[in-house]
């Protein structure tokens, strides 16, 4: 959804008021939430939309004739349309609601992969994938002997594409993240997708970090499968999205079996419903879809280009501030150029373990994540066991970065 009009800058002071949790105090101090890459906070508009739904309209969808059931169905399907619009899908029927992006990727691995991947078939991943885009393929490797190849990560934290064509040769699928949840790296999606298609492979992109941070258009990206997760984009927990090109979804066998996804069931067999419902077994996350639509509308009102500009600025400010202040004591993982990364900043400070760092920062009510960030292979590639990671969203500003910078000095006092 590219927006051509110049973006109105993000007004963080007013945005902060939309997020009730930011008024919370921890240890008597204002909460400085720098962990949006793990899960974003939710604006009042999202909570209100869900409450309003439960308080006026709730009923199970797709099966009721009465007024509120019809209205619940309409709201649920409207959320699908909003999501389709937000990621540039050709049609809402290409949008499948899942419980999170992890399920979306598993759905592709089990359904499309189950039908199309056989012993010896090649799937190309990268060294910077989240476990959500590693384990489903490792499961297929263990179960049916597919071969996995990895695009390496260079010293600069970018994907090393020097051997791209050879790595892609003969591959059936290339699956990779559009933005690293550890390094912040933005990957060249279109370039890899075009090369993959030229090699005869399909392309799955994990958009969990990318879509909350930038304008997304799946057809401009030129991909075949795309996944996002609601809770990282101001939406509720319990919902994710798989988008796939219609003809792929049509041809794929069903995944989970149950209500909603069938056309007919007999004691000896069943036939499946049309897409996207074929892939939505059981009662879907109805209120969560309503909440996700409110999140999408909130982001659309800000404009995703403004969101990107804001986070780009804040990331550059953070890199500048931290390195100016701590010099060689602080090492930023990944590209230093904010144009090449989203608002996710992994760093090492002296030799203080990230766990200890995060614990000390918590005393200043600063929330940063410490650990492997569900990317253990990348940790091994970086030669570390864990990193400390600060990540930014629309409700963060330079003052938040300054609090982080100040709080690092405390860690120094304890462990220096």
């Amino acid at each position, binding site marked *: 959804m590219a927006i051509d009009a110049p973006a109105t800058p993000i007004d963080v002071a007013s945005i902060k008021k939309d997020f009730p949790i930011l008024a919370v105090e921890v240890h008597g101090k204002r909460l400085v939430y720098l962990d949006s890459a793990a899960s974003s906070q939710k604006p009042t508009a999202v909570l209100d939309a869900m409450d309003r739904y439960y308080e006026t309209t709730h009923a199970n969808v*797709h099966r009721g*004739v009465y007024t509120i059931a*019809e209205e619940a*169905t*309409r709201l649920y*399907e409207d959320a*699908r*349309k909003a999501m389709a619009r937000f990621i540039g899908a050709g049609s809402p*029927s290409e*949008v499948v609601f899942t419980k999170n992006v992890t399920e979306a990727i598993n759905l592709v691995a089990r359904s499309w992969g189950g039908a199309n991947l056989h012993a010896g078939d090649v799937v190309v991943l990268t060294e910077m994938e989240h476990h959500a885009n590693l384990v489903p393929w490792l499961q297929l490797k263990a179960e049916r002997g597919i071969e996995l190849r990895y695009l390496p990560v260079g010293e600069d934290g970018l994907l090393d594409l020097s051997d791209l064509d050879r790595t892609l040769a003969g591959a059936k699928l290339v699956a990779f993240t559009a933005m690293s949840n550890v390094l912040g790296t933005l990957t060249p999606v279109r370039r890899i997708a075009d090369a993959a298609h030229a090699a005869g492979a399909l392309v799955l992109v994990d958009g969990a970090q990318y879509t909350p941070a930038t304008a997304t258009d799946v057809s401009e990206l030129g991909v075949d499968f795309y996944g996002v997760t609601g809770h990282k984009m101001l939406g509720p927990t319990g919902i994710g999205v798989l988008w796939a090109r219609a003809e792929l979804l049509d041809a794929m066998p069903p995944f989970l079996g149950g209500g909603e996804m069938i056309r007919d069931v007999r004691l000896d067999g069943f036939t499946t419903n049309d897409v996207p419902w074929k892939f939505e077994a059981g009662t879907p996350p109805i209120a969560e879809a309503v909440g996700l639509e409110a999140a999408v509308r909130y982001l659309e009102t800000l404009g995703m280009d403004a969101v990107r500009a804001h986070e780009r600025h804040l990331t550059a400010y953070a890199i500048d501030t931290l390195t100016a202040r701590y010099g060689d004591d602080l090492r930023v993982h990944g590209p230093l150029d904010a144009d090449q990364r989203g608002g996710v900043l992994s760093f090492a400070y002296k030799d203080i373990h990230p766990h200890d760092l995060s614990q000390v920062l918590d005393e200043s009510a600063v929330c940063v994540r410490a650990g492997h960030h569900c990317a253990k292979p990348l940790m091994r590639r970086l030669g570390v066991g864990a990193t400390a990671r600060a990540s930014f969203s629309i409700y963060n500003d330079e003052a938040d970065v300054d609090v982080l910078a100040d709080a690092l000095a405390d860690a120094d006092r304890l462990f220096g």
Partner: protein
Amino acid sequence: MPGLEDLYREIILDHYRNPRNRGELPVPPAHAETGFNPLCGDEITVYVQVDGDTVTDLRLTGQGCSISQSSASMMSTAVKGRSLEEARAVIRTFKAMMSVHEARLDGDDGGPVEPEVALGDLEALQGVVKFPVRIKCATLSWNTLTQALDSIAAPAS
């Protein structure tokens, strides 16, 4: 809120109580296709006999609500005896009448379409569009007929 009288017009109830063209046709030479409404369990089987360019006969079996049954019955009278081309035009026009709101439910945004042919009695079903969940009832037989005509046009190899 639209009232029930918009939905249950007299002509609809008449076709429901006295369905036209109930029954089967020998297959072959006729072709049979069964459609399901996965939402409510309605099933309809359309038997259609095409000779040369003409839909010479059409019969219906199955069960369903007043809307699905009367729509099927009206469809049978509207299509029987027509040329294939005319039959397709009726189907397109009827689906277009339903589509604005069916689209609403399905997610596709098809705009309104100019009517190609007069729908006559079938216009009574226009009230259904105010009850989006029932549109699937009204279109079940039409989608099933479309499938039947498609597989006559391109027989399975």
